[in-house]
């Protein structure tokens, strides 16, 4: 890149106050160019630059100008003797070059366009903000854009005074000290604490007699019901008895012919 175009690029660059050339560590050279004049002055004077050099710029440029910026900055870098990487996304940007060679204090002149002896590969890092205040100024990150939370934020529901109640049931706390609730679980340990002859299932009076100590699926339950109540139902509940028999038949067919049940494993 010749000095004329460099001049232009620098002109473009430094019209924006956001560009800083800055060194970070002891290996890095700080090049603060506040005004174009200063820059031009520095152009004429040979500047001792020991690599690497970091060009840090930040601003909310448009995409196009970003690219423009990077090409210009890349040009600047190259003129300083650097090789710019291809750029990637986000603003602000940092173009950081680091020295690959070993020679220290390579003298480069901004004005001159001679190729340096040492090449170095700049690293590109994208940062979210230069100053924290800028981040805050940008505001909070918008999440779930377009999502409307269907939540009633209007406070308590309307209370119609001296009028009919709202259509919600009145709260009636249960009396937990009724006899049934107070003595729940009594005699569950009768086989341990009693004489040992009785089993808790024999004294589970709250459970229907035919279901005491029973657990099974619907099919097993219906079979048990038929065994115990079959005769009675045949005589006094014929329709119900018939329906029960049909259910049993249907369940038998379903469980044994239409679906896998865990009983199969035993067979």
């Amino acid at each position, binding site marked *: 890149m010749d000095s004329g175009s460099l001049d232009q690029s620098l002109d473009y660059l430094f019209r924006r106050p956001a560009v800083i050339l800055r060194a970070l560590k002891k290996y890095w050279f700080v090049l603060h160019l506040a005004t174009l004049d200063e820059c031009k002055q520095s152009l004429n004077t040979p500047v001792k630059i020991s690599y690497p050099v970091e060009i840090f710029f930040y601003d909310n440029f448009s995409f196009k100008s970003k690219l423009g910026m990077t090409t210009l900055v890349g040009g600047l870098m190259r003129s300083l003797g650097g090789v710019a990487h291809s750029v990637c996304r986000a603003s602000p940007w940092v173009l950081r070059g680091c020295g690959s060679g070993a020679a220290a204090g390579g003298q480069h002149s901004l004005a001159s366009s001679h190729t340096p002896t040492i090449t170095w590969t700049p690293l590109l890092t994208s940062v979210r903000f230069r100053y924290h205040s800028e981040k805050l100024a940008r505001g909070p990150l918008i999440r779930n854009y377009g999502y409307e939370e269907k939540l009633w934020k209007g406070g308590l529901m309307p209370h119609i005074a001296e009028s009919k109640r709202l259509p919600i049931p009145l709260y009636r706390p249960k009396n937990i000290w009724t006899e049934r609730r107070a003595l729940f679980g009594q005699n569950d*340990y009768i086989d341990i604490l009693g004489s040992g002859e009785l089993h808790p299932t024999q004294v589970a009076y709250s*459970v229907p007699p035919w279901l005491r100590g029973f657990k099974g699926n619907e099919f097993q339950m219906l079979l048990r019901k038929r065994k115990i109540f079959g005769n009675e139902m045949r005589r006094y509940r014929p329709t119900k008895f018939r329906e029960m028999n049909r259910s049993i038949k249907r369940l038998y067919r379903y469980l044994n012919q239409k679906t896998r049940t865990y009983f199969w494993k035993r067979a």
Partner: protein
Amino acid sequence: MSLTLRLAFYPRLHCVVRNVVTSCSKGATDTVVVPKSSGAPLIIQDKWKDDKGAVEGREAWVETLDNSTNSTQLGLIHLNPRIFASYPRLDIIHENVVWQKKSRMVNYAHTKHRSEVRGGGKKPWPQKGSGRSRHGSIRSPLWKGGGIVHGPRAFTTQFYMLPYHKRVRGLISTLSAKFAQDDIKIVENLDMPSDEAGYLEQLCEDRYWGPSVLFVDESDIMPRNITLATDTLGHMNLMPVYGLNVYSMLKHTTLVLTVGATRLMEEKLLYNLDRPDGRSLVTRFRK
């Protein structure tokens, strides 16, 4: 069913000699006889044969429900550390409570299948030609008002039996936990001078016996006065030893045991801890 609220035909008589009856079994001593008008303190001791001295025995006051005496505390009782000082296994207590709830639960919720819903035998419209989707019955689960496929079916039970030794351990853990929290009060007997509910309520207030109290005696026939007093109070209940259970012990804040009930319970639980035929109890329950 409560077997506890039965009126005794005669009140219990105070014996001249105070007997603390313990049944003759492993780890129990003979009756302790203390004269009534003796100045010596009442200490109800029990030397357990399997006491290796590894765990310190626990002691508790023996109280009385009679407020007219000059001191409500009559003496001291030694409690077996294997029952009242074991480590309370919270997970086992939880399992016991869950078992008690589930084993007697019957779900009566019922939904009808497509075959049980009234109607729906006829094909609503021909298979092809009408332009509508094909259907075989108006009571299929796809239809409004149709049958429910996998809904609840009546008389569903969740019965199961918790292993015998887990239930024993549950009782022991609960007793230990309650004792550690000073929620167990040992009482000589359940004799009261008055049969009024107010007297009992006042007594519990004065002694800071929690909002709910469970009185446990060895037999299911309780003295007349306490039966009448607790009849109207829902939060104070009577129970025999065989009716004791983890759920009730947790539901009632304070557990009041008579000396006889304590000894009987200890005997039962100790026997069940190292039963010779324990293996026969570890079988699946079959109806």
